[in-house]
């Protein structure tokens, strides 16, 4: 054959080997093996004596075929390893970039949240302080007193609204960082009740927590706000003069704080969605944000707890905050240090 003028039949096998090596750059080991067998058969049939048969007569030729397979195997193994390393490196770089993006967006989110809250709170501070400054500046006419009071109430309400929005934003952006420590639950409830005394004025309050309530592992600030939002919810959805009861009990490795009311209860269509963001039931009084209960859930879950809402058989609703008991809570009677 004309090819034999350029090289001997043995050297031709190297051309085949070259093709297998080049193939190895692109395909995986299975196809390589197949290609190797194919090319070996081709060489054996077309070039190795006896020609036009698959038999290989020369001992050295058979040695060569064995070596051929060896080399093809090693090369395909090498390229496979190279490919794997390249893929891993690419994945690693993608992961690094993803982490960097996440960090960056978290940082931006936090910066935005901080600057927005700063911007909103500054004029609010001025507005909140205005009535007091007015009152202390001298005697006011009755109209001026009324206006001062209105400014005070509206500013307080706006402040609560801003705080709600910021809390919800913090929950949604995952930037909430609870500070968990031992908390005196009875104290948390008392502070919560006191902070909302104005809103709860029209209702009959009953605090059933005794001093024997165990210490809970929680974030004081978040827990106090969660309880406060439940109290606010009870006050706004129940008729004036009705009862709102706060209780706590220990069972099954958890401490449960419960808020009962004697109102109309939760509508069947609302029960599953009542803790959703911006959800407001059809029967709700106008003027709320729909964020209160969502914040309760966000704050409680951030502390490892759960919230429930259900209707009580004899009328009214019960909202529960369940916090797991943590090992090491000293009984209040215990002598410490």
């Amino acid at each position, binding site marked *: 054959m004309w090819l034999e003028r350029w090289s001997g039949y043995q050297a031709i096998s190297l051309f085949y080997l070259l093709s297998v090596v080049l193939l190895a750059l692109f395909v995986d080991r299975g196809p390589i093996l197949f290609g190797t067998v194919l090319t070996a058969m081709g060489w054996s049939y077309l070039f190795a004596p006896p020609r036009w048969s698959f038999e290989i007569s020369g001992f050295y030729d058979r040695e060569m075929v064995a070596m051929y397979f060896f080399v093809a195997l090693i090369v395909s193994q090498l390229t496979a390893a190279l490919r794997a390393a390249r893929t891993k490196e690419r994945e690693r770089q993608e992961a690094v970039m993803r982490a960097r993006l996440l960090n960056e967006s978290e940082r931006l989110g936090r910066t935005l949240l901080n600057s927005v809250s700063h911007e909103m*709170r500054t004029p609010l*501070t001025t507005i909140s302080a205005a009535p007091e*400054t007015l009152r202390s500046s001298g005697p006011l006419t009755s109209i001026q007193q009324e206006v001062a009071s209105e400014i005070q109430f509206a500013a307080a309400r706006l402040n609560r609204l801003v705080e709600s929005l910021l809390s919800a934003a913090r929950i949604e952006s995952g930037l909430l960082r609870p500070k968990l420590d031992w908390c005196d639950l009875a104290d948390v409830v008392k502070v919560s009740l006191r902070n909302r005394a104005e809103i709860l004025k029209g209702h009959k309050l009953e605090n059933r927590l005794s001093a024997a309530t165990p210490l809970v592992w929680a974030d004081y600030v978040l827990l106090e706000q969660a309880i406060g939002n439940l109290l606010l919810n009870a006050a706004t959805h129940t008729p004036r003069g009705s009862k709102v009861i706060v209780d706590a009990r220990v069972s099954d490795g958890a401490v449960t704080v419960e808020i009962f009311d004697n109102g109309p209860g939760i509508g069947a269509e609302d029960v599953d969605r009542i803790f959703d963001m911006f959800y407001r039931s059809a029967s709700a009084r106008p003027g709320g944000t729909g964020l209160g209960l969502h914040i309760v859930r966000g704050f409680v879950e951030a502390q490892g707890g759960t919230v429930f809402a259900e209707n009580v058989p004899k009328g009214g609703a019960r909202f529960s905050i369940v916090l797991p008991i943590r090992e090491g809570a000293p009984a209040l009677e215990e002598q*410490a240090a």
Partner: protein
Amino acid sequence: MRSEGQNRISVLAIDDEVQIQRLLTLALETEGYRVATAGTAADGLAAAALHRHDLFIVDLGLPDMTGETVLRRLREWTQAPIIVLTVHSGEEQKIEALDSGADDYITKPFSTGELLARMRAALRRANKTPSDEPVFRSGTLEVDLAARQVRYKGELVKLTATEYDLLRLFVQHAGKVLTHRHILREVWGVAHENNTQYLRVYMQRLREKLEVDPTGDSLFLTEPGVGYRLVQSDK
């Protein structure tokens, strides 16, 4: 309480918001204080070094320096009371400020009445000499530090040694907030500065013995996430 004589108490307020500066100037001058303001930490520190001030109000959100740095710089050469302005949910900030040398904090938006009360408490502590006021009184509570006697509504109250130490710490800092860690360090020692459960238990006990009237005002105010404050009622 204002100092005697012709000198009015001088207050330096450092806040980058002009509205807050105006508000503070108005509210404080109405009460008889002399007020100077600064808009940046650099200006504030310069003003602090130039004139003597009796009290500082420092906003923690200053653009050119962290609150901690401003406090540490001030504390390098003045022991005058410092009250910081913080935001809601900035508990970490508050504790850091108190640990860096602030005497108290107030949260924006604040009631000027509350600010004035905390200023008075801070100034009272600064002006106190050991011989002053051996007997502390606030509402129903009376504590005779010299005789180690505690009275609730006139009746003697028995306290354990630890309970008394805890109460005495509050009395010595009456009206001012004390962080959990500070209280634990002072009463139980540095080794226990993270054993919050001790503090919770003992505060519960003190309250049981001294805040007997549930409808009455609280004697010990919980500062959520930060610490406690013994109320100094001026009645």
